[in-house]
């Protein structure tokens, strides 16, 4: 509890310092602004969640037909979810893909480490690159959705992959394809239904551009998942 009180007074002091600094040197504001995204303080407001919030947001992604998510995160988009859900997924992919390939009779087997850099690249590019592209396109087309809200929305949509990765342990090809298709449908629907409210303000063609981007990226993610990580294991 001492830390809590210290935090508040530190923040108050910082706020006072910042306001006095702003009054004193207006000319330096731009200089500190251009590199502000490299400091820790810039990102602190986006980590303002507790575990209950995170659990609630993840639960929201499993019900794709309720367009509630943006209301959940309105005013408080967080970056914790996107970063750590993807980190968990990287671990799960490595663990389960290697577990699948264990064969008790074979002598000379070792684990495939190449999943780690592949999964890292794939997940983080899709989880952070797609929102950047989407946000730029949406800004260009005139949709009013902040950049961090898009990242938050996209990052949490990855949580559909959590149970799917665990289920991918089983060797049955048909089952794997079924759950991959289910995952793709779930997360695409989640994204589209939640963006619908904002997109309805646009014309039809522009709406389909954004929906097209979303669906393409999800499709490539799930196909990559199936074909590279959990491909057919010869018995």
């Amino acid at each position: 509890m001492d830390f809590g009180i210290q935090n508040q007074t530190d923040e108050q002091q910082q706020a006072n310092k910042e306001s006095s600094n702003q009054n004193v040197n207006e000319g330096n504001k731009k200089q500190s602004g251009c590199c502000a995204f490299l400091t820790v303080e810039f990102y602190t407001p986006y980590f303002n969640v507790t575990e209950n919030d995170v659990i609630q947001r993840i639960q929201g992604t499993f019900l794709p037909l309720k367009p509630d998510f943006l209301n959940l995160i309105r005013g408080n988009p967080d970056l914790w979810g996107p970063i750590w859900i993807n980190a968990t997924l990287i671990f799960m992919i490595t663990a389960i893909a290697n577990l699948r390939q264990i064969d008790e009779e074979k002598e000379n087997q070792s684990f495939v480490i190449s999943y780690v850099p592949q999964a890292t690249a794939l997940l983080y590019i899709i989880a952070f690159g797609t929102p950047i592209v989407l946000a730029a396109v949406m800004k260009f087309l005139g949709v009013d959705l902040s950049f961090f809200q898009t990242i938050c929305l996209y990052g949490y949509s990855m949580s559909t992959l959590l149970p799917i990765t665990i289920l991918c342990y089983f060797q049955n090809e048909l089952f794997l394809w079924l759950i991959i298709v289910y995952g793709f449908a779930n997360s695409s629907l989640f994204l589209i239904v939640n963006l619908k409210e904002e997109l309805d303000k646009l014309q039809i063609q522009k709406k389909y551009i954004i929906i097209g981007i979303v669906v393409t990226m999800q499709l490539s993610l799930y196909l990559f998942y199936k074909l590279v990580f959990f491909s057919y294991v010869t018995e």
Partner: protein
Amino acid sequence: MTDNQQVPFGSGMFQGQAKFVDYAHMNQQEVQVNTLDEPVMDTLLRDINMILYKLSYVIIPRMKETQGRKLRNWDLWGPLLLSLLLAMTLGINSNQSSDTIFGTIFIIMWGGSAVITVNAKLLGGQVSFFQSVCVLGYCVFPINVAAVLITFLQSYLGFFLRLIIVGAAFLWSTFSSLSFMSSMMNEEKKVISVYPIFLFYMFLSWFCIFI
């Protein structure tokens, strides 16, 4: 060079202008404290003692944070040695691409410690960066022990025995790092500050099962 400056040892070379440490004019006491001049064994033994002292805190995790006050002197030698040992153990035992494995484990360990510390900072915890990296690095020691054990007893251990050993090592690591880290975290966000540590040690221990 003027006489009125007591140039601190080691920093003579790093001042703004080029200065030499003037040994002829120093008094006897200063020469004895000069760590640049002592025998190499002394330096090594001092560092090794420091590492062993910190390791004793990892082996016997103590819940009270006050007992760990001497650990505030962070050092990165211990984590470096432990990460090299772990990466080499896991790399040697694989049949293919041992250099990729070495590199990946190394990056995961150091990158992971850095990311966890930044995460704790962003969530409002009162953590000092290098202290936290130091603690996370030292607490990898049980996983190291498990990896070396599994390497030597490879043929005698089935999958489930390995799982048990690695599981025990993982719990030990997590518990001892939590006893240091949890006091530095923000009270209301403790679970989401601590979860990455859990994930980090799980990641490192999982590789040991597959040796």
